[in-house]
């Protein structure tokens, strides 16, 4: 175990771990967001998708293990980097002016910590249903877990919707710097491709965030409606 964490002694290796785990988590976010988009396709598709994921068995646990390990490494390494970076700058300037560094790039630890808190809440809320035990009883006509009804029930609580939207805005700030930063750390920097990479990272982070935010907004605007209303509408 001690040798496994020996990368923490090197600044660049720590950064490589941040970048690699960050990219894994980014890929997961893309998949998660695309999965969520099925909320627009109605309860049948959404619940079938959820049931399919649950039915993956061993593969699901491998994905979960990879994600869990990525999160743990990302968090531990970020704390190590934060501590050593703070130690490297023990006294601040009386007057400091930033020339180029953006606000989002300077607040990665803050946005990251907030996202970590949010992810904990999110898991307690939807995955473990600890905050809302009544979700566990939701079943659709096929007897599957009614994820569709659960999401609508959740986002019909304005406070929960606001928390989710705020967290996603912070996630957007985090991703805005993360993608470019991860590639630079892994050595991807070439004048021929930098412009494309920059546009790609902004587009990807914007799509992820807008995709996620659109669900609570869709529930609020009743674009995403409970199953009874959909049936009444003639579907």
């Amino acid at each position: 175990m001690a040798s496994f964490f020996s990368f923490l002694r090197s600044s660049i290796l720590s950064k490589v771990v941040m970048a690699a785990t960050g990219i894994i988590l980014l890929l997961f976010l893309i998949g998660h967001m695309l999965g969520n988009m099925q909320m627009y396709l109605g309860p049948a598709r959404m619940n079938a998708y959820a049931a399919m994921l649950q039915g993956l068995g061993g593969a699901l646990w491998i994905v979960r293990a990879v994600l869990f390990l990525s999160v743990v490494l990302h968090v531990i390494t970020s704390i190590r980097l934060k501590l050593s970076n703070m130690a490297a700058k023990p006294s601040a300037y009386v007057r400091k002016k930033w020339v180029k560094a953006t606000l989002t790039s300077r607040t990665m630890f803050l946005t990251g910590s907030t996202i970590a808190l949010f992810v904990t809440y999110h898991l307690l809320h939807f995955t473990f249903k600890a905050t809302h035990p009544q979700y566990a009883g939701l079943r659709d006509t096929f007897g599957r877990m009614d994820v569709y009804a659960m999401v609508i029930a959740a986002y019909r609580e304005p406070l929960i919707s606001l928390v989710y939207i705020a967290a996603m805005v912070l996630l957007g700030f985090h991703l805005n710097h993360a993608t470019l930063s991860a590639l630079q750390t892994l050595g991807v920097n070439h004048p021929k491709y930098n412009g494309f990479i920059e546009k790609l990272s902004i587009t990807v982070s914007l799509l992820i965030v807008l995709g996620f935010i659109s669900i609570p907004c869709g529930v609020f605007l009743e674009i995403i409606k409970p199953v009874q209303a959909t049936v009444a509408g003639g579907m």
Partner: protein
Amino acid sequence: MRLTLHIWRQKNAREKGRMVTYELDGVSEDMSFLEMLDMLNEKLMRNGEEPVAFDHDCREGICGACSLAVNGIPHGHEPLTTICQLHMRKFRDGDAIYIEPWRARAFPVIKDLVTDRSALDRIIAAGGYISVHTGGVPDANAILIGKEEAERAMDFAACIGCGACVAACKNSSAMLFVAAKIAQFAYLPQGQPERKRRALAMVAKMDEEGFGACSNLYECEAVCPKGISVSAIALMNRDFIRAKLTEVPQKTTAGGG
């Protein structure tokens, strides 16, 4: 010009420093920033006060000795300019100017605005060189180097080692400096034999000296008086990762012949 100067005064490495305010009148806009400080020091000495200590040498922007954070920006607000080459015409009459030393754990303040930047020298000593045989001068074009490669190496060799990158960084990271010193050799044939060893040794020394890690804010590139590109850092990371992946443990090489 009449200026209000807020200057960091610190007796020595051990004592705590503080900002002291000075009023300076009669500054010419044709003076360089350091000449303005010379003028202040003459005034202080006439009044029997201790002059402000600051680093300077060539005063023509090529030696890397001058090192002042002016209004929160290393080398002041003028891009691609060392503080010795910044002229007072870039300021306005009545301006308040904050002058501070580079701030980093690896650059302890010696006195006032003078910091000890020998950590950078120790990183160079760890591997920022190529090993050559002494003796006769080698033939100028014995090793052919493409124009583009030579120019690229020169772009990184432009680093004067002033430490502004460290000073600007929120983590006091020296990665732009170290990367420039690695990249200047990476494009040249002479740099190849020791390339991996160099990346490993210089990065290890950099970590040991207490510099922070890079958060890719690129503030270093923005303040660098020589405009060193952060693409050097990507190159250093590539070299370092490659060297780490192919590193042969010391034990097995000893008997290997």
